[in-house]
């Protein structure tokens, strides 16, 4: 129900003129009504600070925070009608779980009487699977239990805006999924605009309408999960999003009529111009391959680069495995799905579809070409043949 905008928001801790820390720098973010924004970025990049400024806990050094076009810089936190999950929980140590949960509700003039509130608390506690702990004090809870209380304290309300600061970091996969689903449903049901910090990419990809990738306080990209994955604005985003890490190799680029010729150490290939939108002016580029995008050449010719890799390490992950190897262009990492029979010492011939290749300007690190998803349908080999 709220259209959230950050306009040129900057936060400097300490004295701006003298070793002040610029935690957030000139941030512009626009979150339409009911959208779910995920803030993503390395530790210390300013995610928490951004949330705190939205919440009114920190005053921006510069810029404006707007709710529905109203500048709220001067509105007190408690009048912003926001619910927030704090990264460090900030539970009230003197209150039981049930009191912690009910506390915010009681502050609202929502016409709820004690019974209503108690019912709501019980309901929330059940959802969070902490109903047996309602009478415990926070000091008697495990880490994950505390976090769930912190989460509950926010979602028990129906605020104008939800702010979640890594609300699931301390939960196991099962719970994490359940909780994520709950949050997702809750948010989309009631349509409450939300900003969500997580360092878990799967979570980000699943839950986000929009992802904002931050680095060192600056916005790198704001886009849908697909955009961020397939068309990262720059090298940083490309590297940060997606796991295992993207393979990156130096290459030189030469232009021909139809295509760009790309030459890496020990491999080269042509990139048809129709796959590239950008005007390419440089000849020093970085080529990126997602580990998931590799195919084995013995199975398919894709017109992409081909090179051999000597398997160094195989990391099994459940039914999948991540393979690290040495190749002519450099170290290479490939993810092999399904059941694999690769062991270290083996030599793999790898290839990749030109559509899946990322290209970055080596100097500016801006994206030149992203990963094309739609392409594979038009005449390319069906990519559901993923190989190990």
């Amino acid at each position: 129900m709220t259209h959230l905008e950050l306009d040129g928001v900057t936060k400097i801790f300490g004295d701006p003129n003298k070793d002040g820390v610029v935690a957030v720098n000139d941030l512009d973010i626009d979150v339409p009504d009911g959208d779910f924004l995920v803030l993503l970025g390395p530790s210390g990049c300013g995610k928490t600070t951004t949330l705190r400024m939205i919440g009114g806990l920190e005053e921006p050094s510069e810029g404006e925070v707007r709710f529905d076009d109203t500048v709220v810089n001067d509105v007190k936190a408690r009048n912003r009608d926001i619910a927030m999950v704090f990264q460090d929980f900030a539970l009230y140590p003197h209150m039981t779980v049930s009191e912690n949960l009910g506390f915010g509700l009681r502050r609202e003039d929502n016409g709820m009487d004690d019974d209503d509130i108690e019912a709501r608390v019980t309901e929330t506690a059940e959802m969070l699977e902490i109903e047996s702990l309602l009478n415990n004090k926070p000091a008697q809870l495990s880490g994950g239990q505390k976090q769930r209380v912190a989460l509950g304290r926010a979602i028990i309300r129906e605020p104008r805006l939800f702010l979640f600061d890594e609300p699931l970091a301390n939960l196991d996969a099962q719970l994490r999924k359940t909780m994520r689903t709950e949050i997702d449903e809750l948010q989309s049901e009631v349509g409450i605009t939300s900003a969500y910090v997580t360092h878990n990419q799967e979570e980000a990809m699943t839950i986000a309408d929009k992802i904002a990738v931050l680095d060192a306080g600056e916005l790198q990209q704001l886009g849908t999960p697909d955009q961020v994955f397939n068309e990262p604005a720059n090298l940083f985003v490309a590297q940060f999003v997606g796991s295992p890490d993207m393979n990156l190799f130096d290459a030189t680029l030469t232009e021909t009529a139809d295509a760009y010729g790309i030459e890496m150490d020990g491999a080269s290939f042509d990139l048809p111009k129709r796959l590239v939108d950008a005007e390419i002016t440089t000849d020093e580029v970085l080529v990126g391959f997602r580990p998931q995008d590799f195919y084995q050449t013995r199975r398919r010719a894709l017109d992409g680069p081909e090179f051999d890799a000597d398997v160094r390490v195989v990391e099994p992950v459940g039914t999948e495995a991540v393979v690290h190897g040495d190749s002519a262009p450099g170290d290479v990492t490939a993810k092999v799905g399904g059941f694999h029979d690769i062991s270290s010492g083996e030599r793999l011939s790898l290839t990749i579809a030109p559509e899946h290749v990322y290209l970055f300007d080596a100097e500016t690190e801006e994206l030149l070409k992203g990963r094309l998803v739609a392409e594979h349908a038009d005449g390319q080999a069906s990519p559901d043949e993923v190989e190990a």
Partner: protein
Amino acid sequence: MATDNTDPTAEFRRNQSWLYDSKAGGYVRKTAVGLLILIIAAFVLFPLYWMIVTALKSTAEIQQIPPTLFPEQFSLEGFRLVVESSLESSGYDGFVESTFGVEISSAINIDILGMIVNSLKVAIGAGVLAVVLGTGASYVLSRREFRGKTVLMSLLLASLMFPGTAIMVPEWELISTLGLFNTHLALILIYGAMTAPFVVWLMKGFFDDFPDSIVEASRIDQCTSFETFWYVIVPMARNSLIASFIFAFLLAWNELVFALTLLDNQNSTVPPGLLTFVQGFNTQWNVVAAASIIVSVPVLIGLAYIQRYFVQGLTGGAIKG
């Protein structure tokens, strides 16, 4: 590995300290702590012991040279006098005489029960006043910056240090102008004013350490400053509040000079009341000691009771969120 066969855990002596990990060190430590406790206990308790012993001696024995460390002859005369004078002054002497056939006549008509009640009234009133006003102010002084803060705090602090005797005369005049002479309210206000700055400082120390994140959580939970203060901070501040209250209470409980000159005998609090035992020709130390013991007991019981909450601490001590 273990060199000492008798102690299988000897190998965990890698990072050892003689004082904390050797048997000898343990004895030394225990002895030192024991001695410390003993010395401190002696220092704190001996005067109290002396008071109790004095209360149980006869007037003549108190005067003996050298003093007897233990009463040669127990005498409850002191207590008897206090109780009798109490009964007499509160008008029960006739009743006791007719019921128990005990004749009561006491030089000193001190209504000790009445004094205790008066003192409690004044001390609790002043304690509550100081804690309520002082805590609110200290919260703001701790968490907000504003013009004149340092000056305000300096004034509060300096007023705390100003000897009471130095302002006694203007204080009399003030109380008289306000028409509060011989009222407990006067003392509550004066003591409240004397102790509120004290509470401000004490609570400020607490608030200065108070975790911001809890306050922030409450702001997000839509608390007004007052609600944050009342529902979140005050309960967490319980220990410090109790300590502040005890301080303020005891200062008021103990104050002599204003109580002596602003109240008459009927309204008298404990210190001036006891003073009537401690004068020129009348200092019967056994009576004074007995009276002191009698008046202290209710306070001590109260203190032990409050301290229970105090000592229980806060869910395992941590104030951190």
